[in-house]
């Protein structure tokens, strides 16, 4: 085979390989997501509450919001995600509250239970309450990217800065990873 033929054949081979890769990846993506659409989302079990969701999002007020897994929560009067550490009184006074924007509200249900809700117009996704809830409560408060607010950038600016790689693209069919429904993948332990 002369040199010219060799180069031609090699070029065809590379082109064919590229086409095969492209076709394969499209088929794989179709398999993973029926609609072929992906959105950014936070894995609540990987999140380390670093605060960057509040500061790195391209939106003025971050598209990341705190959500509450109601099925996990005891709604107690001692909520570690609601109160500042060692607060003097367990009341709803602003000086007692942990949230820097006052976005976490609680409503009395019956002694000693409260319902906790998040005002998304105020929540900046700082995860302060998430850290408090996870450390001293049962971890029912966690962060999620709200898709009605997220611009679904090609490269999520928060994802770029996330120290725990908690943000990734997920199929739009499972756009939210809410604790309770979404469980931490089991890790097998050798006996």
């Amino acid at each position, binding site marked *: 085979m002369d040199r010219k033929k060799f180069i031609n054949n090699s070029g065809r081979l590379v082109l064919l390989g590229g086409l095969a890769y492209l076709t394969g990846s499209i088929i794989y993506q179709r398999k993973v997501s029926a609609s072929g659409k992906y959105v950014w989302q936070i894995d609540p079990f990987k999140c380390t509450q670093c*605060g960057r969701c509040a500061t790195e999002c391209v939106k003025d007020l971050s598209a990341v919001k705190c959500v509450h897994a109601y099925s996990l929560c005891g709604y107690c009067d*001692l909520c570690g995600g609601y109160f500042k550490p060692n607060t003097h009184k367990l009341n709803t006074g602003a000086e007692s509250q942990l949230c820097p924007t006052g976005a976490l509200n609680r409503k009395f249900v019956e*002694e*000693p239970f409260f319902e906790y809700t998040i005002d998304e117009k105020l929540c900046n996704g700082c995860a302060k309450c998430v*850290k408090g809830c*996870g450390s001293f409560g*049962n971890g029912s408060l966690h962060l999620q990217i709200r898709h009605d607010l997220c611009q679904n950038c090609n490269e999520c600016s928060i994802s*770029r800065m996330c120290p725990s790689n908690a943000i990734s693209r997920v199929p739009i069919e499972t756009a939210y990873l809410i604790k309770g429904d979404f469980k931490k993948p089991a890790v097998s*332990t050798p006996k």
Partner: protein
Amino acid sequence: MNRKVIISILILLAAVIVALVVIDVMNSRPDKRPDNPYEYSVDQFKSVDSTLIKYEETLDFTFGDLVLRGIAFANDRLYLVEDNFLVIFSTEGKKLAKSPLPESPSCVAASSNGIYIGFTNHIAQYNLDGLLIKSWEPLGDSTVLTSLATQDCFVFAADAGKRRVLKYMTNGELAGSFTGKRDSADLHGFIIPSPYFELAVNSFGELWVVNPGQHAFENYTFDGELRGFWEKTAMTIEGFSGCCNPAQMAVLPDGSFVTAEKGMVRIKVHKASGELLSVVAPPEAFEGETHAPDLAVSPSGDIYALDFERKMIRVFQLKK
């Protein structure tokens, strides 16, 4: 303007732009970003006055990569439950026996009568060599057993799922249950926001139940009548914090309580009346912030802490 000057200005401008881009890129690296302005910090509560620490760590037994569940002390032996085995150790850490368990256990208690192992919704009785004697009747789907205690002919079980204490005869017959005091303004029954619900019978035969959602210790008769209680909510060393603390508890021979907390992990000793007596292990002695070590106490007052993070039993003794 001189062409040379224009070119110089353009080169300078280009250099400035390149420098700005480089600085921006460098500062955009994750490790170059400013500290978290929303940091949730409880560091100020982690430092402990060293004069309060009256115990020292004298021995450790490590277990490799096992899923540990609970620990008990009786007859000069340690009874450890892991996924899915009961392991019996001497106090020096020598493995004496190992028996398979049918499923993942959640808690264990031991006395001279035998070993009682709590699974999610039932109890099984084993002899002191780790052989199954009898598996007791299951309690239903929403039951979550988290703690066991034995006294003479009774076995008490804490059911976090149904927020109740169960009283069994040692033959497995269910003799009663109670859900805690409710008819007073400051008592609300057992408040169990997460599956941490402890009980113990002390050497004087008193049943003490932790009400974790209230940071309270409640003393009940064996028939479920409240005899007394104390509670202390504080993030400082004198009290308990978070939704569900103390998460683990054991009683010393003199009736004082050894407590372990989750969130800010620490082990302390409180008098039976509630005052802080001493610190066994401060927060800096532990890794992580989630798991409170399970506790067992020997008749001589040595404290055995099952450290779930480091996968070891840590032995604490009073300083000489």
